[in-house]
């Protein structure tokens, strides 16, 4: 069930990938918005104007984007780890270690999503908005919550995958991981 080529695995991959691509599209939209705003600012003398609230729009857009990227990074094992010491231990040890760290990731994802949800309720309750455009912050939180929820779903799947692997003695294929 918890295999990348199973129906569940394919749907989770599709979900995480689709969300990350949506994040990419939002990022491109932010880039276009910033470019237009710079053009508007440069040509004020010609009657153009900058986009009102460009700073808050880019902050909101990038925040949403980062949330959409979290599930994909976990699914693809993109998060930074140090394997120097654990590489000396056998594959079985590492398989079970992975179960533990994946459970920790699930706990972290759930924690982030749970707190974000409460934060969203607060933002709605206290009617907080952005500075210039007065976009209700609750909606920005709600959009972020979509990413955080998928992060939880992915974390459940990844934990299931590593438990299955540990029990059956399979090893997870090496993934490149992210680096900067």
């Amino acid at each position: 069930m918890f295999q990348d080529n199973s129906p569940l695995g394919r749907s989770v991959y599709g979900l995480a990938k689709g969300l990350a691509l949506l994040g990419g599209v939002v990022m491109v939209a932010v880039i276009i918005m910033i470019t237009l705003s710079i053009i508007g600012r440069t040509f004020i003398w010609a009657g153009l104007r900058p986009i009102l609230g460009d700073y808050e729009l880019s902050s909101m857009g990038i925040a949403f984007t980062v949330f959409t990227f979290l599930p994909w990074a976990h699914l693809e094992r993109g998060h930074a780890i140090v394997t120097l010491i654990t590489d000396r231990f056998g594959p079985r040890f590492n398989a079970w270690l992975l179960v533990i760290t994946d459970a920790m990731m699930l706990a972290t994802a759930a924690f982030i999503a749970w707190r974000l949800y409460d934060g969203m309720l607060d933002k709605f309750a206290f009617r907080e908005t952005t500075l210039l455009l007065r976009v209700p912050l609750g909606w920005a939180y709600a959009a972020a919550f979509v990413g955080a929820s998928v992060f939880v779903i992915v974390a459940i799947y990844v934990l299931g995958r590593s438990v299955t692997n540990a029990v059956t003695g399979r090893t997870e294929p090496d993934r490149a991981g992210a680096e900067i």
Partner: protein
Amino acid sequence: MSNVLLGLLSFPVMLGLIFLRVPIGIAMLATGVFGSFLITGSFNPMLAQFKSLTYSTFSSYSLSVVPLFLLMGAFATLSGMSGKLFDAAASWLGHRKGGVAMAAIGASAGFGAICGSSLATAATMGKVALPELKKYGYSGALSTGTVAAGGTLGILIPPSVILVIFAVQTEQNIARLFMAAFLPGILAAIGYIIVIAIYVRMAPGSGGQRERVPYGQRFSQLVGIWPVIAVFIAVIGGIYTGIFTPTEAAAIGAAGTGIIALATRSLSRRGLSEVFLSTASATAMIFFIVLGAAALNSFLALSQLPQVAAAWVGDQGLNPWLVLTVVLLLYLVLGCVMDSLSMILLTVPIVYPMMLALDFGLAPDDFAVWFGIIVLIVVEVGLITPPVGMNLFIINSMAKKVRLSETYRGVLPFVASDIIRTIILVAFPPITLALVWLFY
């Protein structure tokens, strides 16, 4: 147990978790949350803090520059400009002894000017340069060592994602840090080229050279890389002159490299999706650690450890240069096992206030910039120091027939040049600060 002691003890605990393969972001976040519980006696402060901490960290305007620079680098990687950069560099340098390797360094420096990450630079240049190096008879050790070291130019030459993080953490101006990184970055490239020149003379047969190329062709190939130069000038020039904020400059840069990719017809649907997904992984990796660091820092501030440590170091009357040397050596050692971003996020909250308490004869802002550049160089050395160096691994995996031990051997002379450069920059702060003083 005193709070300061708690703060101090959190480090071995956290390092223990990290060495047990716990993702670094989780190790920092968990240490922050549980440490704060031990100090305040309640989970409520952290539970309340996390209602807004994740969103406010991810929506920070200063940090939004990071994914934009990563996207810019991903487009640049896709666009095939690395090949043109290599050809241009090779037409000028290729006929010298060791010239093809020198060209790889030159091209890496050029690519570093439009890419803010080290690994992307190493991987991209590896694809282009490794086959050429092989063709002209370069040894596996020298080839992989060269490309791995060249990759660090991606971070050392601005734009640089790590410098952005350092700037945000120490509340320094990104433009000033980018400006300060410029000369040391060029020095790094020159140092690597000198290493190659010495290497091929001391180990004859480790590398050949290409045919000399007429000047007409050399200049026409320089003209061929104009889009890279244009994007670099727009981004770095825009930041230096203050026409753009760093975030705006990164957006313009991403648009620029995106257009180059479009113009070179490398931007298929599949290519675009690859660009987005690689940006996604790297972005999420960084922000996840930054979030963990936010929780950790808030706990450390509560423990008063940074304040107490800074006061203690200030009171001891220690020789500042000795302290700096010890700190840099620690970074070098830590860099052998850890990635540079985590190292910076983990150590700067304690180390930076401590170093600020010492007198190096520099104004606080100048000190911050100078220290930031030196730390950047030292943590980047970590990318190419055995046994754990991400650049070494990625390049070695691309050169199928080269053993890892050969790569380790090949990179050591480059590490030596890094250490010499660090000593020079430590001894002569004006090298780093000259451009900053000139423009500010």
